[in-house]
């Protein structure tokens, strides 16, 4: 039951959501953070950094820091100033009138779980899968979306990474610590990844590129024994005998809760005022990867979380 109307409810707990929590809690707005529920994809408390190892480009950590540790630090910093963090997943929101209504658990319940004067949406993005048959059942049996969690189990085995961006090459480099060989399967003949990541991957003797190819079938019964690969040039089919496949073909924003309520860009990311975090609904702000299809960095997410917090704070002041 909704006991009172919260000043700020923050949905999501990556760098954006928790930075918004730090700022709004220091402003004595007593924010409630609905951080999500545990899962093994990037859709989970702490966000995508929970699935990484060394974060080398977050300012303030000259020797780097582990992704999960960084996120635990964000969280304790927010809690230190009184932010309340609940490990639950939002099932429905109603932004059609104020206060905004938020449901946790049964979305058909008559009464919302929480009421809020302002909402900061920081639900992030999650990995896109290939959408091939038996995908779900093979996750954890050779198919993975978390190289840092699972790389360890592929010691001295041949594995493959699908994708051509920075995340794909970062995973390939990381996985080469364990695997005897890492194929990078990419549908084009050039990479989207940054030069530094390309140089690292190209000079890594364990990494071999499979150009102009896409994975079309998973082989193996109870666990992965290989993949069928189709050439994007002539349609010819070949098999890669890999025991592990890591998918890094990009991300999709977690906006399902807001369909039909918040304006989105054509690619599904939330639309905000240029240079701001304000959405089409006054009092609802969007920060982090859910509204960023361009930078997608922890530091830019944190920056926009700060913006959302300040905008929410000023918006609340203006209402009085």
């Amino acid at each position, binding site marked *: 039951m909704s006991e009172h109307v919260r000043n700020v409810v923050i949905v999501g707990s990556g760098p954006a959501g928790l930075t918004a929590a730090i700022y709004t809690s220091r402003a004595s707005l007593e924010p409630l953070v609905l951080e999500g*529920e*545990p*899962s*093994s994809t990037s859709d*989970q*408390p*702490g966000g995508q*950094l*929970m*699935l*990484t*190892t060394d974060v080398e480009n977050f300012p303030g950590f000259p020797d780097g820091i*582990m*992704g*999960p540790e960084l*996120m*635990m630090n964000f969280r304790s910093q927010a809690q230190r100033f009184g932010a309340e963090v609940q490990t639950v*997943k939002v099932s429905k929101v109603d932004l059609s009138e104020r206060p905004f209504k938020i449901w946790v658990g049964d979305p058909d319940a008559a009464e919302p779980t929480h009421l809020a004067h302002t909402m900061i949406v920081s639900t992030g993005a999650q990995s896109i899968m290939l959408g091939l048959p038996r995908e779900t059942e093979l*996750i*954890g*049996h*050779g198919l*993975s979306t*978390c190289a*840092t*969690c*699972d790389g*360890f*189990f*592929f010691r001295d085995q041949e594995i493959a990474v699908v994708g051509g961006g920075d995340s794909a090459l970062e995973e390939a480099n990381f996985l080469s610590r364990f695997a005897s060989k890492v194929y990078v399967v990419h549908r084009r003949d050039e990479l989207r990844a940054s030069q530094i990541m390309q140089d690292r991957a190209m000079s890594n003797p364990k990494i071999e590129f499979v150009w102009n190819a896409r994975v079309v079938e998973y082989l193996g019964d109870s*666990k992965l024994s290989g993949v069928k690969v189709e050439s994007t040039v002539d349609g010819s089919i070949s098999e890669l005998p890999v025991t*592990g496949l890591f998918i890094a073909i990009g991300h999709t924003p977690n906006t399902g809760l807001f369909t039909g309520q918040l304006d989105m860009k054509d690619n599904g990311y939330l639309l905000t005022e240029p240079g701001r975090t304000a959405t089409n609904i006054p009092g609802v702000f969007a920060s982090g990867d859910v509204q960023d299809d361009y930078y997608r960095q922890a530091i830019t997410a944190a920056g926009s979380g700060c913006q959302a917090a300040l905008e929410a704070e000023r918006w609340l002041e203006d209402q009085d």
Partner: protein
Amino acid sequence: MASENVTILSDENFSDTISEKGEPVLVDFWAEWCGPCKMIAPILDEIADEQAGSVRIAKLNVDDAPDTARQYEVMSIPTMILFKDGEPVKKIVGAKPKAAILGELAEYL
């Protein structure tokens, strides 16, 4: 801080622990470097306390016991395997909310 009701496993006490008569043992295969493992640790602590007597919770660090992990075909962590009289009867792969974990265990408790 882990619950007192959680048994810490090693290669030495693994077989003895899972073979003990009585309540089934849920073994959490985890590692220090795994983010999702950290997210479910407090959930398993709660289950250990609340379900004491009907299930025993144990943790095995795969860095310390890679052979045991391989023996049970753990290829992703967190993986939780429920053992009854030494035999694996249920495997749960990936971090999940508490209700989902309890739901998967229900028929064995």
